[in-house]
């Protein structure tokens, strides 16, 4: 009986090894197979004692060779490990790491999204003779051991929304959150609340969540992982992977194929993307690696669970200590803990005081701010850097004096005067404005010229008002002598348009149906944002190739040469009518407008500039294909990084407005673009998480032709409005006057 069971276990171990190593030939695997078969063939001839000896030997051989195979694991083998049905799952962790738990996000298939598991769990810790049960909120993707309804941990938008809801609950209850990332990526459907939008909301919320958060990565697939992983401590299982895209997806893009990529290319991509725990630790995107047994943790590795428990407790303790500081005795205790004392033996209160809660958020921001700084080329001279630092300091002092101290008293005084004015009016005394301002328009910041145009009679004899036709920048397409057909010609009966008309005076808008033909980013920069008189900053920050991705240096150099840009992001300060604004543009001609470390850094600096100077911040997405996959996690980390900067800016009372144009997809939409409360789209643009091809491949469902169109996004509630290209300047100015927080310099 005992022997049978042990033999079966050996067979199971062998089949697991063969699953992991795939079709690859391997001498160790062949040896194990041969030995096991040999034993099974001869077993009937052995006596009981001989059997015991033989099985014991075989088990030793298995352990030895598993250790040897561990050293031969390629990145793709690790991907196969985390996707294996025998891989530890969140439920195993809840059973073995926590002392008690209750599922609250649903149960098995009776859940809004069975892939997302949410539980209230407790960890028991000793305090002297007393046992204290510390509550935590556990949130994570449950892959289930082959349970089809879990959808492999690919979370639908409503699953992420549920996770967000319980994060808020944890914040209300002031208990830490432990998240476990077991996802190959989010389920890319746009149905409300929308894959991209919900991930953006999660990131935005987590950026300011005032409770300790610890994330543990097993399978960290891009946006799906980020949806719950913006944490104070990020741990990673040693056999896990954390990547911007699945190796299969990268291979499909790399190969430019419509069909499936070859296994060799997928292996190569897995290697190049630097997805392993070791790589991510080295790059600084995770804090610690939790060692797993050889060939990955499975549900019966109890030692692994003990280790995991110690690590999550230690991580939570560290976060709490980081936020509220250490007492002298506790510091001593921590030193002892480092010397090998089990962290669960030293009690740490996990609920934070109000001061510590704010400190926690600030620390989280600093942590993410410091990531991926090495991953770009900073071509500024030392002098420029010093000057920028100095200017920043001076602006901070200026804003403090002018907007915080002086403006506070000014506001009080004007409030008092307004009150007096109202009192006098109530008494029926006709008084002029005590504030001495000239009319309501001026108080709103409407420029004088516009005010007179709005309030005086028009003069038809001076000719029609054609101010909007005088474009500063004309598209080179308008110099071609040819006609262009509108894509809606069949359904709307649009007539052909002459290119000089269409791309010149009509600003690329079909005169019949209003379809917007794509225009160059320069058209917007000069005609909408007055780039000619703008001050561009940080142009010296250029994209690099931080992972030394094979062949990418060449492509990058080509993109820089063709566009004359250092990255896909242009940041500048300009004026809209009389209001100064900071604008960041993502432009599609540079590597499809993808976002990497340089773009992320430029965006954060632009947002910080807007925050310090109390300026409104516009984000214009001329087109973005997503995160730059060749930068791997250096790219994907920009999602939380930039979102945190946005959150900080909005919390400080700014105006963050996003304008989508042409095609905006994936990571940026699922983070810093999608989290804006004011998102508008230029007509005929497309907005989404994944393109139709990816949706078809991952979900097996085809989407209708206009699924990603701005009007669909508007009716799904993702964006707040659709604007005509020719009205952008007017609409943006209107937005400046009517939207945003109270801490803008002109308010």
């Amino acid at each position, binding site marked *: 009986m005992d022997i049978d069971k042990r033999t079966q276990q050996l067979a199971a171990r062998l089949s697991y090894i063969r699953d992991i190593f795939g079709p690859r030939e391997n001498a160790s695997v062949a040896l194990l197979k041969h030995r096991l078969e040999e034993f099974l063939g001869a077993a009937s001839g052995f006596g009981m004692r001989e059997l015991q000896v033989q099985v014991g030997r075989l088990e030793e051989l298995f352990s030895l060779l598993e250790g040897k195979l561990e050293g031969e694991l390629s990145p793709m083998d690790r991907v196969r490990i985390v996707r294996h049905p025998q891989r530890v799952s969140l439920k195993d962790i809840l059973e073995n790491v926590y002392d008690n738990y209750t599922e609250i996000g649903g149960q098995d298939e009776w859940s809004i999204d069975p892939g997302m598991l949410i539980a209230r769990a407790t960890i028991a810790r000793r305090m002297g003779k007393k046992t204290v049960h510390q509550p935590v909120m556990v949130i994570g993707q449950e892959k289930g051991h082959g349970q089809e309804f879990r959808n492999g941990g690919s979370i639908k938008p409503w699953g992420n929304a549920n996770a967000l809801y319980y994060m808020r609950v944890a914040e209300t209850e002031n208990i830490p959150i432990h998240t476990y990332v077991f996802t190959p990526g989010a389920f890319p459907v746009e149905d409300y609340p929308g894959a991209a939008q919900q991930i953006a909301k999660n990131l935005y919320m987590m950026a300011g969540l005032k409770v300790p958060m610890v994330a543990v990565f097993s399978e960290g697939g891009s946006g799906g992982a980020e949806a719950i992983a913006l944490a104070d401590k990020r741990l990673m299982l040693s056999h896990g992977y954390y990547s911007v895209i699945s190796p299969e997806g990268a291979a499909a893009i790399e190969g430019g194929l419509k069909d499936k990529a070859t296994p060799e290319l997928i292996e190569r991509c897995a290697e190049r993307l630097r997805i392993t725990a070791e790589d991510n630790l080295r790059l600084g995107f995770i804090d610690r690696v939790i060692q797993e047994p050889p060939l990955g943790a499975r549900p019966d590795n109890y030692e692994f669970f003990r280790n995991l428990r110690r690590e999550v407790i230690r991580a939570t303790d560290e976060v709490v200590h980081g936020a509220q500081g250490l007492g002298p005795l506790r510091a001593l205790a921590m030193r002892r803990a480092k010397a090998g004392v089990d962290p669960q033996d030293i009690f740490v209160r996990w609920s934070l005081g109000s001061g510590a809660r704010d400190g926690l958020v600030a620390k989280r921001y600093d942590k993410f701010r410091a990531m991926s700084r090495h991953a770009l080329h900073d071509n500024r001279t030392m002098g420029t850097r010093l000057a920028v630092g100095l200017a920043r300091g001076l602006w901070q002092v200026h804003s403090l004096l002018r907007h915080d101290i002086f403006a506070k008293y000014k506001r009080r005084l004007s409030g008092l005067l307004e009150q007096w004015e109202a009192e006098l009016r109530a008494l029926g005394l006709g008084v002029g404005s005590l504030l001495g301002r000239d009319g309501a328009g001026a108080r709103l910041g409407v420029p004088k010229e516009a005010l007179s145009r709005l309030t005086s009679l028009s003069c038809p004899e001076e000719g029609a008002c054609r101010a909007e036709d005088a474009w500063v920048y004309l598209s080179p397409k308008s110099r071609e002598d*040819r006609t262009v057909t509108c894509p809606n010609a069949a359904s709307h009966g649009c007539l052909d348009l002459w290119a000089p008309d269409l791309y010149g005076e009509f600003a690329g808008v079909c005169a019949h149906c209003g379809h917007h033909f794509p225009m160059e980013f320069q058209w917007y920069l000069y005609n909408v944002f007055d780039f000619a008189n703008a001050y561009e900053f940080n142009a010296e920050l250029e994209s690099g190739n931080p992972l030394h991705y094979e062949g990418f240096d060449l492509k990058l150099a080509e993109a820089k040469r063709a566009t004359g840009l250092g990255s896909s992001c242009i940041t500048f300060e300009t004026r809209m009518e009389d209001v100064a604004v900071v604008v960041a543009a993502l432009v599609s001609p540079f590597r499809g407008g993808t976002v990497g470390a340089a773009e992320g850094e430029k965006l954060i600096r632009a947002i910080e500039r807007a925050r310090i100077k109390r300026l409104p911040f516009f984000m214009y997405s001329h087109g973005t294909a997503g995160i730059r996959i060749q930068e791997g996690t250096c790219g994907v980390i920009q999602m939380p990084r930039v979102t945190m900067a946005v959150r900080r800016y909005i919390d400080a009372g700014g105006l963050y407005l996003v304008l989508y144009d042409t095609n905006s997809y994936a990571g940026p939409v699922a983070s810093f673009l999608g989290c804006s409360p004011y998102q508008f789209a230029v007509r005929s643009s497309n907005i989404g998480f994944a393109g139709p091809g990816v949706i078809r491949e991952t979900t097996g469902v085809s989407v209708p032709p206009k699924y990603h169109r701005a009007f669909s996004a508007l009716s799904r509630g993702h964006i707040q409005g659709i604007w005509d290209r020719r009205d952008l300047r007017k609409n943006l100015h209107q937005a400046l006057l009517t939207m945003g927080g109270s801490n803008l310099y002109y308010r």
Partner: protein
Amino acid sequence: MLNVKEMLEELKASPYEEIEVVTPHTGVVQFVGLKTGDRVAGPGGKWNEKPGTTLAALTREKNKKNICATQKGVVTDIAAELEGQFVEAGVRLLTIRHFLSKDEVIARILKKALYLFCAPERAKYYFVPEIDGKIKAGGEQSVKPRDGMEMFIVSRMKRETPLAYTGPEGIIYAVYFQQGDNVDGGQPLIGVCQESQLSLIQDVVNRVQGEWEEQD
């Protein structure tokens, strides 16, 4: 009186429709190498989002546009002499012989044999309770509409108004709408035939279902 049998014979004699592909506007014609007898496909995909086979290209003002097949069929009679020529709008380029499917044949016969009573505006349509009850009890053919008979309730934005049938007397052959669903204006609500022709029509439809050979 309509001779349904004769119609069927006629359709059998020429079981196809000839679609003349003409130029939508002026331009220089360029064929894509199709030959007489080649098969072409109509628009495809779940939403008809994929255009049909390209038949020719027409270039006007350096703007080259493809002309695609609107129905599947076989190419006959290509005006090859127009290759490279500047043509006016409405000039025939080629003809597609589109073989009729069973559904198309039945639709043609019914179009001629039935009187279709159409929805006057986009709204939800219901039968009045009396007629609804009759249909539920005895089937569609138990109702005999006559001119001026109040048959429907039009429900639009929660306001309900009665609608009377106008047209020849007969019996309902088919109901084309689902009660409670929105029906666009101009879409048929019911098809009415003369009582004497009912069995004839049913017979022909059955024969088409059984005998009509579809050609690809």
